[in-house]
């Protein structure tokens, strides 16, 4: 067993620097690497590029890094829930590259799987395809999209073991598995870190080979963005 465990978030983020590109898992606030984000805020590194489906809300998730003006560029598919984001984008402080959600996921997966680029029909004929190579296959048009390149991927899983094997819970899975192994260094924070052998190999979602560092997250607030309920009859 190759042990991927690090003691804490500080060790897990060793080597992050100004100007780097980070992938961050999560959909909305669901399944975001809360501990890594807090540490990035604490470290105060600047000019970072974030690849993340969303940009958090004003006072949580990536919104914390935005408030601190630590982000230079966001690559996302949907950024609607964040006023500070909109302000920085419209004023030109923040560079934003909006990418179709499926393309965003596949650009991560391509990096993980060793594909330099792929063709997708998404965005053909729209401004997303401007300046990109297009090609016809079987009478339908496709856009060539390159794989992402990133320095660190920060992901959040439910359970993990010392070998870096990961299991996700519910829809907190989302982009997290696609980002594992898609950056130079993948850092996984887990709710429960277990000894090797504790997880059934049949149930592993992401094998430890895709993860360089794993640590037990100190706290997970798991804030709910839209609490919707029904009444008991």
């Amino acid at each position, binding site marked *: 067993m190759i042990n991927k465990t690090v003691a804490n978030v500080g060790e897990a983020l060793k080597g992050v620097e100004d100007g780097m590109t980070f992938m961050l898992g999560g*959909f*909305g*606030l*669901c*399944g975001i690497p809360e501990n890594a984000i807090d540490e990035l805020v604490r470290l105060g590194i600047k000019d970072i590029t974030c690849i993340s*489906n969303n940009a958090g809300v004003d006072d949580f998730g990536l919104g914390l890094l935005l408030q601190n003006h630590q982000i230079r560029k966001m690559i*996302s*598919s*949907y*950024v*609607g*829930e964040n006023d500070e984001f*909109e302000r920085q*984008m*419209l004023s030109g402080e923040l560079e*934003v590259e*909006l990418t*179709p*959600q*499926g*393309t*965003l*996921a*596949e650009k*991560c*997966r391509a990096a993980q799987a060793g594909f330099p680029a792929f063709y*997708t*029909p*998404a*965005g*053909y*004929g*729209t*401004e*997303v395809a401007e300046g990109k190579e297009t090609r016809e296959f079987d009478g339908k048009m496709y856009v060539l999209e390159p794989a992402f390149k990133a320095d660190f991927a920060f992901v959040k899983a*439910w359970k993990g073991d010392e070998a870096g094997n990961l299991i*996700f*819970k*519910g*829809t*907190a*899975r*989302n*982009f*997290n*598995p*696609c980002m594992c192994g898609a950056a130079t260094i993948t850092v996984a924070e887990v709710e429960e870190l277990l000894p090797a052998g504790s997880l059934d190999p049949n149930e592993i*979602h992401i094998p430890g080979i895709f993860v360089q560092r794993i640590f037990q997250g100190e706290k997970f607030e*798991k*804030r*709910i*963005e*839209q*609490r*919707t*309920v*029904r*009444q*008991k009859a």
Partner: protein
Amino acid sequence: MLDKNGIAKRIAKEVKDGYYVNLGIGIPTLVANFVRDDISVEFQSENGVLGMGPFPFEGEEDADIINAGKQTITTLPGASFFDSATSFAMIRGKHVDLTILGAMEVAENGDIANWKIPGKMVKGMGGAMDLVASAENIIVAMMHTNRAGQSKLLKRCTLPLTGVGCVTTIVTNLAVLEVTADGFKLLERAPGVSVEEIKEATEGTLIVEGEIPEMNI
């Protein structure tokens, strides 16, 4: 004239037994409330769940189980969770049978715009570009006119496009229309709405052939 629930109710009739369905945010989300309970349908949410159920009871919300609108949800027997790449493999790979989404504008050639108003609103396309580029059966749910009273069914879209030539059916508060090579073909009128009223509210080419029946909802 229909309200939002009325539009959802009419669209629900297009959901057939054995369908996997992706519902967009807004009016499309309401469709799930009106699908007949004697047919088998599974709802897909692109953040990674198939077999979505109703909202949870108070106190039973789980922060780890949400839909693409970031609302807390439940799952039904037979449900599954998956990652975002797998989710869009279902969509891009045409495994989802029906896509229902909202729009700001639809053009008579099937183009759709629903993600950006330059200089005003930039929220992003989310999964909409992937959905409209791949799905073969796309129903747009929207009001026939915008808040300023202008038609949303146009000769050509004026806003940045989400997809080209992809919309097949449109259900609005006034009518059900099909996108054809010659323009918007009027199929049904909303209760109490005349063909004249629909003509007036439609900027694009409207094709009216014979008697247009009133919707049965």
